[in-house]
């Protein structure tokens, strides 16, 4: 009798082990795997727009419409963000009251590093964006932080982006469940419908890039932050990533969150990670 029970138990365990081995692949598919997500995300756009060169996706609407690309190239001869770029370069070199400069806050003196932002700060357990790091640098040196949506921040990020032009976006997700959760939270925000118009970011930038919303041609979500910050004719001024997120919210009639809210930091993390490998083209000019 006992033997039969033992046999029974043994086979049950074997079955369990077999099941356990098989299931991780099944479970893994459901848990967050950023690398597979990024590959799927990029392939979606490469297949949907076979005619667009991969690195051209960072040019937003201009990768979708020839006539607008011509208008853009004409403007790029003497782009309207020239002044912000020069102002940013000057600000970057001007020391704070305590004699330090931004270069002391950033690796490699802040030159050519934009492609690694945002990054996951394991001490803080949260995503840190370039705009946030710049303001933290100011505060650490006894200076008042800049508004996230005004020209000073745009000039600084314009200069830092310019020093990284052409470098490939290189966002890392450390082996830390909180980092994966931030990526997932960003992805969730990106696909969640909000506002009375009931749009999500994906409604415009995944389902209908290349199509028009009145005068504007919609940019593909792939590489959509690579050209940031942007000079927009619509604003006849510079716009940071924070300003873009806030105005997009308002357009769908959703009340924006405070700049650099966790959701914004995470969606920037998501959008930047899935654009890994595509070149930085900021600062940019847009309609």
């Amino acid at each position, binding site marked *: 009798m006992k033997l039969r029970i033992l046999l029974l138990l043994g086979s049950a365990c074997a079955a369990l082990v077999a099941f356990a081995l098989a299931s991780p692949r099944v479970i893994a598919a459901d848990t967050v795997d950023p690398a597979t997500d990024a590959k799927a995300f990029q392939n979606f756009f490469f297949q949907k727009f076979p005619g667009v060169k991969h690195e051209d996706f960072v040019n937003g609407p201009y990768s979708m419409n020839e*006539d*607008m690309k*011509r*208008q*853009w190239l*004409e*403007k790029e001869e003497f782009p*309207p963000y020239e002044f912000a770029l020069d102002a940013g370069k000057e600000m970057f070199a001007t020391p704070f009251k305590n004699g330090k400069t931004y270069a002391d806050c950033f690796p490699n003196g802040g030159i050519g590093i934009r492609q690694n932002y945002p990054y996951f700060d394991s001490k803080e357990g949260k995503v840190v964006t370039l705009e946030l790091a710049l303001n933290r640098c100011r505060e650490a040196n006894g200076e008042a932080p800049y508004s996230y*949506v*005004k020209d000073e921040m745009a000039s600084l990020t314009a200069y830092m982006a310019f020093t990284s032009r052409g470098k490939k976006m290189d966002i890392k997700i450390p082996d830390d469940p909180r980092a994966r959760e931030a990526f997932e939270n960003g992805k969730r925000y990106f696909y969640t419908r909000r*506002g009375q*118009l009931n*749009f999500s970011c994906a409604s*415009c930038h995944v389902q209908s890039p290349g199509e028009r*919303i*009145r*005068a*504007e041609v919609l940019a593909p979500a792939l590489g959509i932050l690579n050209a940031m910050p942007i000079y*927009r*004719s*619509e*604003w*006849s*001024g510079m716009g940071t990533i924070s300003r873009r997120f806030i*105005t997009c919210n*308002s*357009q*769908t*009639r959703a009340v924006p969150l405070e700049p650099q809210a966790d959701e914004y930091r995470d969606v920037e993390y998501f959008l930047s990670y899935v654009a890994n490998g595509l070149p930085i083209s900021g600062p940019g000019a847009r*309609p």
Partner: protein
Amino acid sequence: MTTTTGPHPTRRLILQGAVSVALIGLGNLPFAPALAAANDKYPDEAFKLKNEAEAIKALYGKTPEPSDKIKLDAPEIAENGAVVPVSVTTTLDKVTSISFFVAENPNALAASYRFPDGAIPAVANRLKMAKTSSVTAIVEADGKLYSATKDVKVTVGGCGG
């Protein structure tokens, strides 16, 4: 469309502004005396006139005739009414002046350029357009006036707000 809470003036305000002044513009100067464009004075009256034909008359004192020797380059749909790249080149010779008119703007005359001898008869600039309108380039060559026109669509961008 940015919201009214936005710190910067929004497109909608610009458009409303444009409409309101159009009405005021109507009641201004009676027909201004003909002025040759070549003089140095800033053609203030021409810039104040609403109507394109009047503005051309005020600036040049003559009426233009269309010419295919002028190549006017403007977008079919303006990326944005605030910054519309417009340029013109011409094979006409002895060109002394080129001007741009946007018929539907509050003031039709947008920009006027003087070409002393030696200047190549071509110019590129970025104009503002209140709404969809015809854009006309007028070229004064050897004392006569020629024109080329193109329609440019302008609407606001964005989905709601």
